[in-house]
């Protein structure tokens, strides 16, 4: 099933599709084309979000300005933040991952090329949904983290926030799909010799990042579901006046939102880790530590969310805990900075545009990291949170960090993607315009924070110094806008030149530089045996290989079936989604007075019957799988149909329960018990339904007689899903029906 044997590909196997024209891009499942689609889409949205930023800066260039209305300004900063995070930075990083992860590990394509195409198309679809709001009564204006209750219908009655939630949900599904795909590619599609600990660091950091996306996005999606149910079905999860909680939205959002910050930066770390060694002409200093520190950052990132909430009033104990956990992240991050620096020492540094952007990254990102440290010191946050000092801080992290690294990545990999090297002279103009514009725009904002300027204000009074600093910032932002224009010009001018970059213009060492520029659709004609972390170095210097071939060959290196890997990741992702709904149910049913309806309303004995049916279906499915392996077709079909029947019994039972509840007035928005009950059991029921559809598809194949022709693994994989759905029900049933009445 896996593609690990694909070390040799001939041109004939590369398919016979149409290779040009618009349709070839729409229908493509080639990871490189999809990568370019991601990058192109990200560039489009970069210009959109950039124009929004410039409009804000024009408005703020002088006090009491009226270039845009307050309403429009609030829409602009909401859309700017959302666009830059979800439609620019994430797609760019995912685009690079799409293009280069398979190439760097020597794979033919991603593990699931069709899923890859689908995941991409979720991005423009979600982006269009969100931008459609401009035409449908106004863009969202509740800020990119949509704090409740401001984001709720009573305070936000147009449909902007609805489109915002829908768009994010759709793009979230796309990001999760890609991430699962990347994980499966890395785990299951490496050629022999490319062990986990020989993978380039960009692949490692994208790998870790994909786990973050897989686990963090469902947290956002669960929160969005609750917000959406509040807004469209008049529930009140986050409406305090009806017993909901404004603070729980912040917990939920930042439980996603802080891992998201690392989602935005880890692959950028990976790019820098590729570019610096090549242009310093030395291998990365401390590869193992770089991997270890990125894993540490990813794990810690799930335990720091409430540092976004130091002004919520959680108390000294919570503030101290999250301050300490946040500062811990400084250690692995610091190690990275020092290791990049140490790679430079003793090297032979070529200071071209890509390397210049890396050097600027080291400086600007450190500034952003250090101002982050000041925010981690909770009492400082009690003064500086949500001021312009914060705006400066996170732009130094995301712009000074990620954007600079992305630019380095573009200059570094452009020759591989197009066969052409971007103009160095124009590149240097681009670099200096970016550095000067960026620091001019954002460095002064630190001082505006000290001077007391809150973020997200559409205008400000003429206080001493405010006008001057804001004007400097605005001028800087236009220099920054010009720099993006220079990049576009560079790309266009370079595209007109002949493609003569050659396979390996930088004399780099990783596998993507082995093949042609741009690579053929099948990526490689031949992959050499991989013995170390720098396969091309080993080829060029057989006398001085990185690792003696025998030394690490036996290192533990699992190769799993790609479908099982994908399903395992999907199950992990879904677990986090249900975990949030379960936490929501417990929270709302313990902390608040429920009134007329509560968990006592439920008919536990009746529910137990259909619970037994669902749990029994796991057993029958297991027996069916057993007969499938034993190639006893009739027995397999019988038990399999029995499984489907039991699943149907569950759904019918749940339908009956819902009908009874609806007729007695327990509707989706009756109170917080009913709202949390219905979204938890309803989403579970939906998963049972999807499971039944999958089982029916298997059944059809089974009747055709196809189930044992190499598809046994697929049946087992779908079985995993079915068992997972049952396991979730055990948790849900215990929480809602057994523990619920006693909460």
């Amino acid at each position, binding site marked *: 099933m896996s593609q690990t044997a694909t070390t040799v590909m001939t041109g004939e196997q590369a398919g016979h599709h149409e290779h040009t024209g618009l349709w070839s891009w729409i229908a493509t499942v080639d990871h490189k084309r999809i990568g370019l689609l991601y990058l192109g889409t990200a560039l489009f949205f970069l210009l959109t979000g950039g124009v929004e930023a410039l409009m804000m800066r024009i408005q703020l260039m002088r006090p009491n300005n009226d270039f845009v209305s307050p309403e429009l300004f609030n829409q602009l900063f909401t859309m700017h933040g959302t666009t830059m995070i979800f439609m620019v930075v994430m797609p760019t990083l995912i685009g690079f991952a799409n293009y280069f992860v398979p190439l760097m590990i020597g794979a033919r394509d991603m593990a699931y090329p069709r899923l890859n195409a689908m995941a991409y198309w979720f991005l423009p679809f979600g982006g269009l949904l969100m931008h459609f709001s401009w035409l449908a009564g106004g863009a969202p204006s509740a800020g990119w983290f949509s704090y409740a209750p401001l984001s709720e219908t009573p305070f936000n009655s147009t449909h902007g926030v609805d489109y915002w939630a829908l768009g994010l949900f759709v793009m979230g599904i796309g990001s999760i799909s890609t991430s699962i795909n990347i994980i499966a590619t890395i785990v299951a599609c490496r050629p022999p010799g490319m062990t986990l600990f020989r993978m380039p660091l960009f692949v490692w950091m994208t790998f870790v990042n994909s786990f973050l996306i897989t686990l963090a996005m469902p947290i956002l999606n669960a929160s969005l579901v609750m917000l959406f149910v509040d807004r469209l079905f008049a529930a009140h999860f986050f409406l305090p006046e009806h017993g909901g909680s404004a603070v729980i939205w912040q917990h939920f959002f930042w439980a996603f939102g802080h891992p998201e910050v690392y989602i935005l930066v880890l692959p950028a770390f990976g790019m820098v880790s590729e570019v610096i060694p090549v242009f310093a002409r030395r291998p990365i200093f401390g590869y193992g530590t770089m991997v270890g520190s990125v894993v540490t950052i990813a794990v810690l990132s799930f335990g720091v969310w409430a540092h976004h909430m130091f002004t919520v009033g959680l108390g000294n104990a919570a503030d101290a805990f999250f301050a300490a956990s946040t*500062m811990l992240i400084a250690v692995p991050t610091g190690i990275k900075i020092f290791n990049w620096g140490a790679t430079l020492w003793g090297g032979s540094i070529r200071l071209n545009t890509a390397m210049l952007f890396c050097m600027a990254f080291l400086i600007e990102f450190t500034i952003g990291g250090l101002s982050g440290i000041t925010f981690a010191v909770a009492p400082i946050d009690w003064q500086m949170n949500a001021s312009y000092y914060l705006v400066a801080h996170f732009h130094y992290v995301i712009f000074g960090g990620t954007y600079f690294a992305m630019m380095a990545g573009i200059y570094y990999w452009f020759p591989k993607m197009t066969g052409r090297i971007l103009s160095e002279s124009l590149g240097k103009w681009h670099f200096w315009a970016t550095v000067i514009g960026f620091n001019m725009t954002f460095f002064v904002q630190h001082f505006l924070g000290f001077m007391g300027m809150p973020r997200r204000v559409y205008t400000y009074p003429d206080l001493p110094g405010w006008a001057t600093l804001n004007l400097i910032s605005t001028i800087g932002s236009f220099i920054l806008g010009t720099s993006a224009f220079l990049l576009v010009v560079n790309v266009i001018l370079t595209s007109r030149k002949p493609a003569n970059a050659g396979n390996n213009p930088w004399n780099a060492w990783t596998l993507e530089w082995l093949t042609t520029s741009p690579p053929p659709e099948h990526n490689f004609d031949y992959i050499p045996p991989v013995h170390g972390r720098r396969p091309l170095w080993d080829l060029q210097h057989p006398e001085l290989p990185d690792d003696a071939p025998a030394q690490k060959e036996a290192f533990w290196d699992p190769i799993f079936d790609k479908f099982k890997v994908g399903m395992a990741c999907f199950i992990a992702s879904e677990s986090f989604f249900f975990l949030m709904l379960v936490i929501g149910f417990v929270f709302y049913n313990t902390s608040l007075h429920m009134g007329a309806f509560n968990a006592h309303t439920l008919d536990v004995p009746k529910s137990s019957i259909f619970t037994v049916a669902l749990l029994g279906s796991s057993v029958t499915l297991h027996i069916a799988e057993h007969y499938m392996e034993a190639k006893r077709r009739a027995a397999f079909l019988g038990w399999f149909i029995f499984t489907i029947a039991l699943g149907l019994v569950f759904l019918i039972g749940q339908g009956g329960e819902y009908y009874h509840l609806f007729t007695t007035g327990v509707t989706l928005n009756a109170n917080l018990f009913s709202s949390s009950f219905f979204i938890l059991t309803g989403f579970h029921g939906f998963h049972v339904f999807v499971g039944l559809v999958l089982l029916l598809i298997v059944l059809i194949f089974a009747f055709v007689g196809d189930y044992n022709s190499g598809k046994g693994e697929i049946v087992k994989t779908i079985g995993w899903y079915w068992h997972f759905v049952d396991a979730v029900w055990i948790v849900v049933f215990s929480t809602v029906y057994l523990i619920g009445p006693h909460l």
Partner: protein
Amino acid sequence: MNQDVIFNSHVATIPVFQPLAAQPATIAHLFTTVLWICAGIMVVVCSMVFGALIKYRHKEGAPEPKPYFGNHTVEIIWTVMPSLIVLWLVWLTIDGMGQYYPDLSKKDQADITVVGHQWWWEAHYKDSGVVVANEIHIPVNKKLYVFLDSADVIHNFWVPQLARKLDAIPGFPNAIYLEAQKPGTYLGACDEYCGVQHAWMRFLVIAQTPEDYAAWVKAQQAPAASPARLTGSAAHGAKLFHDMTCANCHAINNVPALYPQTAPDLTHLVSRQTLGGCIISNTPAELTRWLHDPQAIKPGCRMPNLKLSDDQVADLVNYLETLQ
């Protein structure tokens, strides 16, 4: 816009570093310490990067450097050193926390209860029963317990020189200490985005000597001039105040409004320096402009344009100017 009266004099340029109360002073001191630590780290990182760029630039014809894969001893050094700095910072953090969260079980004894509204602040004084909007008078050198509440969405009470900032969240009780060591006017702002006019949810804290403060309280406790004693245009204005539904939202003389808590109490309107969350100065001319069309001055604010005639506005201003 005419905000001269508000921001003309003695405004601190860098309020975060010009604290005038014990708690923000501790924070400013802590901030300075941490910034110096950060500056030290920045110097190290810059020397590392620029040092390498000066020392190890590629020279024409130089051979490829020998591969070098790292050194665990060095890595341990730059794991342990930052860890020690982190420990130091954690200690500084915990040491700096102290008593910034007042005991919420005593919220009934709060000296002042501040309620955030879209987009203005309301303050109730426990002892005197005084109710004010957007301008909070306090006596100097007294650590006041301020309870924070919200009537709608999340707001944030921020007076950089006098207190830590804290959110005012509906359904989630919060409190801070507010103190001023010197008499003066201090700027405050809402620091949590709260909707279309978040920018103009500014307020003033006016710290006064105990004598001045006592006099202010006394004036605030006195009832406003009774409409019955008014004559001419002002009397007409008082009638308009009810006929044009102003009184539905604005209370005067403890006459509760029909929709309480939607708009500032106007009993002592003239005693305030500003209107509309500090967007304009409180002068008869500005009040006239405001009454003509509040939406033109503060678009999106809750007060509608009542399309008053010039005469009606003049009468209303004459009446409101009696509310000393």
